[in-house]
């Protein structure tokens, strides 16, 4: 049966933010795109379980998030030095994607525990409410709030930002450009 046009459009419209979520989550564009692809395949295979009129982005994010978590657990079992490997993929990322100005930020983000990272991205960048983020992650609203807080504190610590400090893409871009890019 062909998909409903409205549903099809909702899926298409969600792809840019699904990719942004996946890239922020795993730090690797190729892997992120595989996650998005797998999410689409699963979503369409299970489209009957989507209730029209409910939150399509939240539904898709939930699929992607769960898939990422199970992949991540598998990978951890397979590759003992997952962290080192992850750090390497991050280093090759900036030039490849023209994301130089976010290099330092990405690296800090990647050092957060996964549950804190996903909570922070969902609330701080994807624009989901605490309630929606809690649904996506399958936990209580209070848990999301405390994860977001811990994520922010840790990021500030890693990036050594304090009130009044110079901080931001501009300064970082200049530093990278000055170092010969």
């Amino acid at each position, binding site marked *: *049966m*062909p*998909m409903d046009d409205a549903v*099809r459009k909702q*899926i*298409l419209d969600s*792809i*840019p*933010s699904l*990719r*942004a*979520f996946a*890239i*922020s989550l795993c730090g690797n564009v190729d892997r992120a*795109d595989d996650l*998005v*692809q797998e999410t*689409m*395949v699963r979503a*369409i295979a299970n489209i009957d379980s989507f209730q029209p009129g409910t939150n399509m982005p939240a539904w898709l994010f939930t699929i992607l998030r769960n898939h990422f978590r199970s992949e991540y657990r598998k990978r951890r079992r397979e590759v003992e030095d997952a962290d080192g490997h992850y750090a390497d993929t991050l280093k090759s990322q900036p030039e490849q994607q023209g*994301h130089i100005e*976010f290099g330092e*930020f*990405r690296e800090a*983000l990647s050092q957060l525990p996964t549950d804190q990272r996903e909570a*922070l*991205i969902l609330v*701080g*960048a*994807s624009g989901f409410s605490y309630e929606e983020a809690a649904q996506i992650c399958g936990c209580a609203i209070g848990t999301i709030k*405390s994860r977001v*807080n*811990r994520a*922010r*504190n840790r*990021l*500030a610590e890693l*990036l050594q*930002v*304090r*009130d*009044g400090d110079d*901080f*931001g*893409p501009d300064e970082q871009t200049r530093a990278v450009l000055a170092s010969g890019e």
Partner: protein
Amino acid sequence: MDTGAARAKKHDAKPAKLGREVQARLGQQLRSMYDEVVGQGVPDRFADLLSQLDNKDNKDRQ
């Protein structure tokens, strides 16, 4: 006891609350990184995949 648990939790959490300015900067940084990807739109790969997965464009239907 409740109070003991609460105190233990508090001890675990960061004592200092982040300033608004820091929070705003971190948020801005996170959003610009995210929005840069959003701005890339839908890569052909995914538009094609959707058509492929959607029976509408399936050759079987003719």
